[in-house]
């Protein structure tokens, strides 16, 4: 087991409550000192869980945490212990201490930490932390993808906040041949093999179920899921809505 693996397993045991006190101290201290180790944990889902969480009982802890982190804290036994909220049933065990961290108030702070993590790749593009009040230069990075112009990816310092409706010509049929990350051949997504299922638009009610589900589905497919709920087919009919059914 490499040293890193060992640390990881220690950390894991700590969150699971299976590490002896003395070792817990040690791990916590090491984490607070070792930005490398901390960073290695920083990109996973906890912050996401916090960002998406319901506001729980706000406490004054968030600013405290922020200040503490900013100062690269050591373990301070005198500090006020976090208030541990009663654990919601749906949260995994490791998430619990966070629920005491005043999620509502801590939200921005968490984002700040995340972006400002040393060595985080975001720092290069967005060192300027998007704190709530800094809206001066709205555009952080613009990616214009135009297959005809390979050098089209540009960094723009300041530009209108909302992209205009004039979109670059979409890549219909296939991306630029120059892209090396492509599969060898380009296969158009095949038609729905379940031809028995008619391609009728979603009833509004079904769209509601899909929307409700999207809160717990993977963000990467969200765009396609939602756009599918809006799709129109040739056999367009009036969607069923409750107002008409009752």
């Amino acid at each position, binding site marked *: 087991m490499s040293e890193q693996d060992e640390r990881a397993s220690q950390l894991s045991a700590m969150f699971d*409550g299976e590490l002896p006190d003395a070792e817990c101290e040690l791990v916590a201290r090491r984490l607070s000192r070792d930005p490398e180790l901390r960073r290695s944990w920083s990109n996973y889902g906890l912050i996401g869980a916090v960002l998406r969480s319901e506001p729980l009982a706000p406490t004054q802890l968030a600013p405290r945490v922020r200040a503490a982190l900013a100062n690269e804290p050591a373990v301070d036994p005198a500090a006020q212990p976090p208030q541990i909220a009663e654990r919601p049933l749906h949260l995994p065990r490791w998430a619990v201490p966070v629920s005491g961290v005043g999620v509502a108030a801590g939200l921005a702070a968490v984002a700040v930490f995340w972006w400002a993590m040393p060595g985080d790749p975001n720092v290069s593009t967005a060192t300027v932390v998007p704190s709530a009040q800094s809206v001066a230069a709205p555009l952080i990075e613009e*990616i214009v993808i135009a297959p005809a112009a390979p050098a089209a990816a540009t960094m723009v310092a300041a530009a209108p906040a909302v992209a205009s409706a004039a979109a670059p010509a979409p890549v219909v049929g296939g991306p630029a041949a120059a892209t090396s*990350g492509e599969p060898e051949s380009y296969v158009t997504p095949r038609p729905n093999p379940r031809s028995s299922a008619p391609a009728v638009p979603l009833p509004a009610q079904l769209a509601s179920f899909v929307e409700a589900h999207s809160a717990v589905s993977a963000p990467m497919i969200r765009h396609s899921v939602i756009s599918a709920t809006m799709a129109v087919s040739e056999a367009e009919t009036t969607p069923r809505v409750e107002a008409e059914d009752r």
Partner: protein
Amino acid sequence: MRFLVCGSWRQALGVVLVACGPLLASADEGLEWIERMNQALVSRNYSGTFLHERGGQSESLQVHHRVRGGQISERLASLDGSGREFIRRGEEVIYVLPDQQRLISERRPRNASLLPRFPQLDERSAGLYVVSPLTRTRLTARDVRLVSITPRDPFRYGYRAWIDSRTHLPLKTELFDNEGNVLERVTFTSLSLLRDLPDEAFNPAVDTSAFQQVRLEPPRPRIQRVTGPQVWNVQSLPRGFRLTQRGEQSVPGSESRVPHLVFSDGLASVSVFIGVDQPPFGPGEAGRERRMGASTAYSAFVNGQHVVVVGEVPVRTARLIASQIRAARPAAPAEPGSPAEPSAPAAPAAPSKPAVPTQPASPVEP
């Protein structure tokens, strides 16, 4: 509480937790990048245009996404033909259908009993998917990481994502079945990472004042069910899936919130809504299924309950999960005097059913 075995490091942990993520036994880089992408998609502000291909059709859409003060606003608008739009502003969800001169709106209060939480890859996922080594490459002149996740069986889909190295936003994603057939593709043609977006970005592009306004009413406050609360569980599940969340959801056509169970294999997730009063497919349409791109919706009548299953899984998976839904009475009958908390989880104390191979939604307290 069991997790608090150590005392004095708690405050340090509180600090550290904010900076650290949860634990993955596997430090696989590919999965790390998937997590980064997911984070970027839900937490950053961006505007973009993408091409959505599925079933031999393609459509251009524009997306705006903003997180401000904990409130998420997003807008997806079709740039082709119909000009349809999906808009979410916090709790308000609006479908704009210019082709029908119609606007459908709905209030979807955030549900305290079911946190928005996307699937988390963990060591279990390793047996279900093959994660290819992360490739660093270029896509339309951008430095990207290509992550490819292939399912090992037909109960789930595979994903390929070209993730921008700097912004972590996916420039392209593909969904494919276990035979490698690409079912869906989302390709961004432009994308801007923004510090902020104005409110106007989340208004419909067209004047909707003359549209027919249809409002889907949220359910009234929970009605005490005569039968008392029931606990829903599953008998068995497709390999790798387990119950990850329980909650309640307000859905149109049902007078009270309905139980909402979430199953996940670490990548795909499946929602099961139980006891829906009004089937979304229409009357007498139990057993109907519909594929909507990456998502499958399936409606069934199981053990006297109308069940609706929605998830980014093949139909067979949705069907299998639906067929396994069972009711289990809680040990103690509900007392008439104790009001059922609408926000309380559907299963306050999951009764132990030894035969059930699934794990409970939450870690069981000692």
